[in-house]
C-alpha cells in the first residue's frame, strides 16, 4: 500500500488532522449556523481555496514541463482591478469580468514568451512576477483599497452551505478533471510534458497546448486573487497572494506530479493543497509563531523531494537488476 503515490501525502494529511484534534478537541466539530457549516475543517477548506485553485492551474503548467512564478502577482492584479472598479462606483460582476479578462491577457503573455519566443518558463514568468506587483500597485496607486460590496463579498467570504470559495475551487478542479480526462487534452498535455520531441513527430500541436495551459493558469490566479481580496474586502497590492505561487508549486509536488513534467494527478494536487493548509492551521493551533510555518514547509519540501528523488530509491533499494527476464532475453537477441 505504501507503493501508492498518494500514500505519504494522505498519511501526512491524516496525521495533521489527528494532531489538530488532539491539541484542540473541538477541531473536528462542525456547527450549522444560518444554514451554513462552520468549524475547523471548514476553515481549512475556505482558507485553502485560493491555493487549491492556483495549484490546479499550476498542475497543468508543470505537466508540460513548465512552471508559472507569476501567479501571485497576477492574483494581486486581479484583486486590485476589481476593487478599484468597485471603489470607483462600478458594479461587482463587471469588475470581476474585467479583472479576469486582464488575467487571461497576462496568461497569454506568459504563454507567448514560453511557447513562441522559447524562453525558459522560470525566467519568462519571472518577468511578470517582478513587474506584476508593480502593476498591481499602479492600479491601486499604492493604496490599500477597501470595498464594501455585498455581491463581491460572496466570492471570498460567502456561504452556500459550504464556503463559496471552496465550492468554486472544487468546481474548477472537477471541471478540469472532466475536461482533461473526458477529452484527449490530458493525454496530449502529458505527452508533451513527457517527451516533447516525440510528441512533435507524432503531430501533436505542442505550442498551442503549452500556450493554453499558461492562459488557464492565469485565469485560475485571477479567480484566486478575487477570492483573496473579497475575503478581506480590500485589495492589498503588496501582500495579496504573496508566496502563493510557492505554496501552489509545493501542493503540486506533494501531490506527486513531477517537476520534470509528464503524468499529473489532480487528486494529488487536492491532497497537497489540503496538506499545506492543514499544516498552516496546525502550526497556529500548537502555538508556534505563525511566521515560523515556513520552517515546516521547508522540511516538507525537502522530505517530499528526497522521497521522490530517484537517487534516494537507489540508496534504499536492495541492489538487483530491475529488468524483467523476458526483456533481457529479447535485448540479447538484438544485434
Amino acid at each position: 500500500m505504501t507503493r501508492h503515490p498518494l500514500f505519504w501525502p494522505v498519511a501526512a494529511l491524516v496525521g495533521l488532522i489527528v494532531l489538530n484534534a488532539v491539541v484542540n478537541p473541538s477541531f473536528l466539530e462542525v456547527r450549522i449556523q444560518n444554514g451554513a457549516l462552520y468549524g475547523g475543517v471548514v476553515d481549512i477548506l475556505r482558507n485553502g481555496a485560493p491555493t487549491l485553485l492556483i495549484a490546479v492551474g499550476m498542475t497543468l503548467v508543470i505537466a508540460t514541463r513548465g512552471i508559472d512564478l507569476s501567479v501571485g502577482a497576477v492574483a494581486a492584479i486581479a484583486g486590485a482591478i476589481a476593487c478599484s472598479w468597485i471603489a470607483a462606483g462600478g458594479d461587482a460582476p463587471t469588475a470581476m469580468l474585467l479583472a479576469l479578462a486582464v488575467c487571461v491577457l497576462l496568461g497569454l503573455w506568459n504563454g507567448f514568451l514560453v511557447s513562441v519566443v522559447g524562453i525558459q518558463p522560470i525566467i519568462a514568468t519571472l518577468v511578470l512576477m517582478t513587474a506584476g506587483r508593480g502593476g498591481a500597485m499602479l492600479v491601486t496607486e499604492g493604496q490599500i483599497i477597501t470595498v464594501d460590496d455585498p455581491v463581491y463579498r460572496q466570492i471570498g467570504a460567502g456561504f452556500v452551505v459550504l464556503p463559496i470559495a471552496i465550492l468554486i475551487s472544487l468546481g474548477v478542479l472537477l471541471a478540469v478533471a472532466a475536461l482533461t480526462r473526458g477529452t484527449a487534452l490530458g493525454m496530449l498535455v502529458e505527452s508533451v510534458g513527457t517527451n516533447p520531441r516525440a510528441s512533435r513527430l507524432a503531430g501533436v500541436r505542442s505550442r498551442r497546448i503549452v500556450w493554453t495551459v499558461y492562459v488557464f493558469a492565469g485565469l485560475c490566479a485571477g479567480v484566486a486573487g478575487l477570492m483573496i481580496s473579497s475575503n478581506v474586502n480590500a485589495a492589498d497590492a503588496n501582500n495579496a497572494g504573496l508566496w502563493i505561487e510557492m505554496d501552489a508549486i509545493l501542493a503540486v509536488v506533494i501531490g506527486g506530479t513531477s517537476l520534470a513534467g509528464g503524468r499529473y494527478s489532480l487528486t494529488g494536487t487536492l491532497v497537497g493543497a489540503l496538506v499545506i493548509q492543514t499544516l498552516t492551521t496546525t502550526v497556529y493551533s500548537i502555538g508556534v509563531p505563525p511566521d515560523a510555518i515556513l520552517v515546516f514547509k521547508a522540511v516538507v519540501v525537502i522530505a517530499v523531494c528526497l522521497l521522490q528523488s530517484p537517487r534516494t530509491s537507489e540508496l534504499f533499494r536492495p541492489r538487483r537488476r530491475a529488468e524483467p527476464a523476458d526483456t533481457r532475453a529479447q535485448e540479447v537477441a538484438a544485434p
Partner: protein
Amino acid sequence: MNVLDVRRVKDRVDRIPRRFLPVIATFLVFVLTFGTGSVRYEGFASPQVMTNLFVDNAFLIVLAVGMTFVILTGGIDLSVGAVAALSTMIAAATLEAGWPPLAAALAVLASGTALGLLMGLVIHFFDVQPFIVTLAGMFLARGLCFLISVESVSITDPVFRELATGTISLGEGVTLTYSVLIALAVVLVAVYVLHLTRFGRTVYAVGGSESSARLMGLPTGRVRVGVYAVSGFCSALGGLLFSLYMLSGYGLHGVGMELDVIAAVVIGGTLLSGGVGYVAGSVAGVLVLGTVQTIISFEGTLSSWWTKIVIGVLLLVFIIFQRMMMRRPG
C-alpha cells in the same frame, strides 16, 4: 563621419567578442539612465549621488556576486534574500545576547555558508532541481528568522553602529561607507576567483557544457556544490551589510530581494542558461537598478512601484536580447 570611418567603427565593433556584448549593453544602459537623470534633474550628476548608488546598494552588490557564481553554472538560488534576512536576525540576536561583534559576524558568515553548502549537497547528490531546493532554503531561512524573534530586533552594539555610520571622505564633501569598501573587496576577490583560479574556470566550463566538463576530467561535482556555498557566504555577508544599513534584524527584511538580485545579474548580461557572464556585469546591473530607483525618487511624483515595473521591463528586454544572441551562433 565619412563612409570609411563608419566601416572602421563597424570593424572595431565586429572585433569585440560576442560574449562581451551583453555586459557592454548593460554599461550603455547604465550610462543612458544616469545620463537621462543628469539631464532631467538638477544635482543628479553629482559625485555624491554617484557614490550613494554604491552606498545604498552595497549589500545588493555582494548578493549579486554570489548569484553570479550560481547562475554561471546554470543554476539558480532563490534563497539569497531570506538568508540575508536570517543574517540580520542572527547578527542582531547574538549581539543582543552580548557576543563580541567579531564573533557575531563570524557566526553569521558560518551559518550562511553552511546553509548554502547544504543546499548544494542536496542539489548535487540527490539530483533535485536547484529551484526547489533553494526554495526550501528560502522557506527555512525565513522561518528560522521568526523562530528567533517575530519582532524586529534593533542593533545597539557600538562597533556595528560605528561601522554603519562611519564614513570615509573622498574630498569635496563626498563620502563612502565601510560597506562599500567591503562590497568592492568582494567584487575583486570574485573576479580573481572566477578568472584566475581553476575553480573559476570550472564554474564557466560547467555552465558551458557540464557533460563536456566531466569528460575533460574537471571536478564538476565539487564546483556545483561549491557555488551554492559561495552564494550562501555572499548572502550572509550581504545580510551583514544590510544589518549595518538598517541597524536591525528582522524576518521581513529583504522580502523579494532575490528577484532584484536575479534581475541585476540577468540585466548584467549573465546568461541564465549558464556559462556566460561577468561579475562586473552584475555590478553594472545593480547600478542600473539603483539609478532607476534614484531617478524615481528624484522625480518625486513617480511612486516607488514604478521601480518594479521598470525592472520587469528591463529584465524582459535583456532576456529577449540574450535569446536573440543565442539564436545566431557565430
